[in-house]
């Protein structure tokens, strides 16, 4: 049995849940799959999940699960695991699972393999591919001391539309005991910072600058290239962390998601948290001095070289005509 724990917020499934179901179907190789959905009241989500070709959908409702806290979710998940006795537990690698999956693993003393991009083999023999060293290497990992092994699946690594549908899964309610006094985090409502002045989602072209730019003074070079291309300027996270460009120009999982006609990545390595924010762009150009940089994985055009030579040459070329 493989257990998938779905992610929902306010009665809506996170799309990444379907990706985790697709990963589970691949890993199962025909073995049964249960999908669990947790929440205070999960409405029609159980039925929605039952559309997948899985053995069962488990609906675990408890008032203590709303709002989300790691303590309540780890308690609920460990109870589920005890009753289902899965060989693997699969979850999408989201901010929520980053928060409670390690707690769950620590509590039940079972291995947790995070950010998995590929599954090799099925069942007990499977190994899992995950990035290491900032995506410069891919590791093949075998969990020890399961079952179950807990696996979190990288966003975008498995295709939601590859989920095999057409199951006649039974939707079952499961009872959970969660002691509300054991929940130590008291969350307030989520909010967004002050309204963003720039909406990069509307930009036709974006020149995005990363740590390869080296210093704040050099941002001017990237801005000049942006002007020559008729593009907006944007950045990877470290540039905004340093205060070299405002936060609202950050692209990636914790910033904006964009899909312009043209995205030029200047000195950006291509960490997954950056890629998820821009890989939908129509044409991607990467300029990086490291031929092995992961950004080339998503680029349509690549130039391996020093941006301090390439960018001025591009500006000259663009200003010619």
């Amino acid at each position: 049995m493989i257990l998938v724990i779905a992610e929902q917020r306010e009665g809506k499934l996170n799309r990444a849940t379907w990706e985790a179901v697709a990963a589970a179907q691949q890993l199962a190789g025909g073995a049964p799959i249960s999908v669990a959905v947790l929440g205070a009241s999960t409405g029609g989500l159980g039925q929605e999940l039952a559309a997948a070709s899985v053995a069962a959908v488990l609906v675990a409702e408890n008032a203590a699960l709303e709002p989300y806290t790691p303590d309540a979710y780890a308690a609920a998940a460990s109870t589920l695991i005890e009753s289902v006795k899965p060989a693997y537990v699969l979850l999408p690698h989201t901010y929520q699972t980053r928060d409670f999956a390690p707690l769950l693993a620590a509590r039940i003393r079972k291995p947790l393999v995070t950010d998995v991009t590929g599954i090799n083999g099925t069942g007990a023999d499977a190994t899992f591919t995950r990035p290491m060293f900032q995506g410069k290497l891919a590791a093949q990992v075998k969990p020890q001391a399961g079952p179950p092994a807990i696996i979190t699946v990288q966003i975008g690594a498995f295709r939601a539309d590859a989920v095999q549908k057409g199951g006649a899964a039974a939707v079952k309610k499961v009872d959970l005991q969660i002691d509300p006094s054991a929940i130590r985090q008291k969350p307030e409502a989520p909010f967004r910072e002050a309204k963003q002045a720039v909406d990069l989602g509307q930009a036709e072209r974006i020149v995005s600058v990363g740590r390869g730019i080296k210093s704040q003074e050099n941002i001017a070079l990237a801005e000049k290239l942006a002007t020559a291309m008729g593009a907006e300027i944007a950045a990877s996270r470290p540039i905004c962390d340093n205060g070299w460009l405002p936060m609202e120009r950050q692209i990636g999982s914790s910033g904006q998601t964009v899909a312009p006609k043209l995205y030029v990545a200047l000195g950006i390595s291509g960490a997954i948290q950056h890629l998820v924010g821009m890989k939908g762009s129509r044409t991607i150009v990467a300029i990086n001095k490291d031929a092995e940089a992961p950004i080339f994985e998503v680029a349509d055009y690549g130039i391996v070289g020093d941006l301090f030579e390439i960018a001025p040459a591009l500006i000259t070329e663009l200003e010619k005509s």
Partner: protein
Amino acid sequence: MKIAVCIKQVPTREWQPRLNDQKTWIREADISYEMNEPDAYALEEALRLRERHGGEVVVCSAGPARVQTVIREALARGADRAIHVEHDSLGAADAFVIAEALAAAMKDEAFDLVLTGLQSDDQGHGQTGVILAERLGIPSSTIIMDVRIEGSSMRVKRELEGGWFQWLAMPLPALLTIQSGINQLRYATLKGIMAAKKKEIKKASLPDGLQPSQQVVGLAVPTRSKQTQMITGSPADAAKELVRRLRDEARAL
């Protein structure tokens, strides 16, 4: 406030990976190392909290003798003392082993607050902090962008996806995993570097019998799925060719 900061020493960002002969781990001989980036932000946050609320900042690191360099750097930036769990095997150990090793060395200290980075730049498990919290028997919250101490409890600001945030209240003691960008980093001064030489680094040994929770059976440069058209030549030639293709082929300019 007695604050612990867990700091990992990781290969520098410029490092080009080289594999060992079995292709199961990296060749450690030719690596230069630095402080894991989110850990530097965690350290800075600890120093700021000490400035505001008094107390001490203790650096905790698990690793071979080489990690002394990063411990000294943290002491030079202003931490008061350090605990070093030293063992050669800790350089490549997984999150469970590291967390157990740190917990054993830290539990008698009864820290009010433990800060870690949210993720390491080398193995990138994103788990060590939370497992450590559980082993220390204290609550945790992750991906933190602000910390406000209010007596025996605190309010922390958690980053969510896509520009969303959330405040939450938690009792102390607790553990937080810190996100890069929470503050602006300070660097060591000459005075700090001199002072660091006299600060205490307590050695702790690795508890016996810790079992890894996962094993790396293979390591490789990722395979590429997309056909990237690489444009070569001098900077001027490459620029000319790229602009041509962006205009004629991609119609993106």
